[in-house]
């Protein structure tokens, strides 16, 4: 009987060690993933919680709300955004809202302008053969894309002087123009890829049916390319919303954007952590929302050109 109850088929030792190794491998993968997620999310968490701390909480390094410190509206009160000050008149809040509005207008209009100009240019370059002087299509594409290499500092000082002569310093219009310029190559990069994947037969069919080339572009091609345009728009918006260098040089009082406001606070009064945290959090909040909701498009935009 003993022989029948004994196990006949054994997993070889190699197979059994494989199972253990596989388990260890899974464990390691999740450990690294969770570690990196903490690395990515902890600074954001720290900023959010610090916005609700008071001085002693910050000094003692308290981290978990309700458990080791009691949330407090101090930081938001200094911005005029806490529940008890929201109804009152607050100059700081007005200032903050003006910066916020500046950032909003500058990033949205420059991204829209760049997507408009860039989509047309990318479409033209992907469909027709041009000859401007000695420049043919590859040269024109290179001309546009090479703007990406141009470091902002090269343009910054000439623009400062030119804008002074043009009375455009500290205006939203001036910022919008220069932001459009900085994101235009990225838009063209993404859109060229996008239009390249749309078959030309579509427009040919539309034109046989009597549409003009612009009609075919606007009514047939653009709707198909819309995901790419959204991706380009969002990427441009992220870049322009976060832009600091030009804004710091070219604005003074009226057209100041949020990053400049955040940076100027660190310079003058680096101690009021709660207020700084509240301000930083307000500055990054729109992009965190965009990042979580529209992550698909951002990834699509950045993957453009990576895969041919």
């Amino acid at each position, binding site marked *: 009987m003993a022989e029948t109850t004994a196990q006949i088929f054994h997993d070889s030792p190699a197979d059994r060690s494989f199972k253990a190794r596989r388990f260890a491998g899974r464990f390691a993968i999740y450990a690294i993933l969770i570690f990196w997620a903490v690395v990515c999310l902890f600074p954001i968490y720290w900023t959010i919680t610090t916005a609700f701390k008071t001085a002693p909480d910050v000094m003692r390094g308290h981290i978990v709300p309700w458990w080791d410190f009691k949330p407090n509206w101090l930081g938001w009160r200094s911005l005029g955004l806490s529940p008890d000050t929201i109804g009152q008149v607050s100059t700081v809040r007005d200032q903050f809202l003006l910066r916020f509005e500046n950032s909003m207008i500058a990033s949205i209009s420059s991204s829209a302008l760049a997507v408009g100009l860039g989509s047309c240019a990318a479409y033209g370059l992907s*469909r027709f*053969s041009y000859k401007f002087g000695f420049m043919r299509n590859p040269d024109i594409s290179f001309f546009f894309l090479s703007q990406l290499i141009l470091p902002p500092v090269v343009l910054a000082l000439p623009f400062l002087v030119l804008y002074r002569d043009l009375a455009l310093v500290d205006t939203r219009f001036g910022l919008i123009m220069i932001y459009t310029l900085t994101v235009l190559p990225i838009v*063209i990069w993404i859109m060229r890829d996008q239009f390249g994947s749309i078959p030309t037969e579509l427009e040919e069919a539309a034109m046989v049916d009597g549409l003009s080339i612009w009609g075919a572009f606007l009514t047939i091609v653009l709707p198909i390319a819309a995901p790419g345009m959204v991706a380009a728009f969002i990427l441009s918006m992220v870049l322009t919303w976060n832009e600091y260098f030009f804004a710091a040089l070219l604005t003074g009082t009226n057209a100041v954007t949020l990053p400049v406001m955040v940076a100027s606070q660190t310079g003058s009064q680096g101690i009021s952590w709660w207020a700084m945290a509240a301000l930083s959090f307000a500055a990054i909040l729109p992009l965190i929302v965009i990042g979580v909701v529209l992550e698909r498009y951002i990834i699509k935009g950045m993957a453009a050109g990576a895969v041919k």
Partner: protein
Amino acid sequence: MADISERLHVVTGDAISARRRLFGRGMIWGSFAVLAIVAALQFAQSYNLMKVGFANWRPTLYAYAFWAVCLCWGQVVLRGEQGKRVLFVLPAALFTVAMVVFPLLFGLSIAFSDWNLASSEGPHFNGLANVRQMWGDTFFWNALLNMVYYVLAIAVEYAIAFGLALLLAADIRARKFFRVSFLLPLMLSPVAVSWMIGKSMLEIRFGPIAHLARYLGWENPSFFGSPWVARAAIEAMDAWTFIPFMMIMILAGLQAIPRELQEAARVDGASGWKSFWEVTFPLMLPVSLTAVLIRIIFKLKLADIIITVTSGGPGGATDSVTSYIYRVYRDRSNVGYGTLLAMFYLVIIVAAMTVLMKLVDRWMNPRY
């Protein structure tokens, strides 16, 4: 790049009358004449030759916009359907030319002047004095050297990004959560990052990272005291924001690799490590090169974090070229010298990138 055969071919029979052609030409040249006259008047005024009464250079800007519109419209009038095609590219080209080529030429002219915005005098041509000053400017050369270190650090960023992309491409649960959280640092403004991490989490007395460092046995953690630690801290912050960028590009590349290739490698008995080095990695080379090249381009613009966290300190150890030029302008209002440094930097970048791209091209498409 679209092949010629993929292009759209349309045959059009435009009959453009002589009058229409005349009208088109008249429009383009007429508006150009307006632009030339306005610009000439403004130049005359700025050199005190004539009183015209313009408060600023805006009229020239408006004249340029008017000429640009007329030029675009004139294309259609002159060339019919062919002109409508030019209309796709022309606005973007005119915009870029106005915003880049003109300021660059202008910048070149002020690079060789002693223009100080703080003084009431205008620019004076001072020949090669700025070049001589640059030659002796140890801070600038130090900043250039720092840029080399910062660019070399991309190798580490790339390794981390590749590792993360491999993990994300693996068969895991909650992939979307990990992807979104890995992506988030890229969305944050560098200035906010420099406050969140540089100013507050790395704060010596009570920042959480300082606490951690003390716990791990570093007696007196000071992240911006000694040159190399400060440089590493700046680089870490910049890497934190930009690793997701490379990660996403590599992830897209990984997902485009046909599964059969990896399966074939496994069937042939390759271990995980071997199949990575001999199948996945070579296939990923083109994507990797694109990602690294774009990353280098972005790295060369590094400034925001340095300006807000250390403003170049200690002793210029963390300076990037951009942040140094920013300080030259902020502290001394020296537009002429700052522009020369920027122009010199541009020349170096263009030369280096051209060489790099040529090398990459030669390496990817070897000619035997």
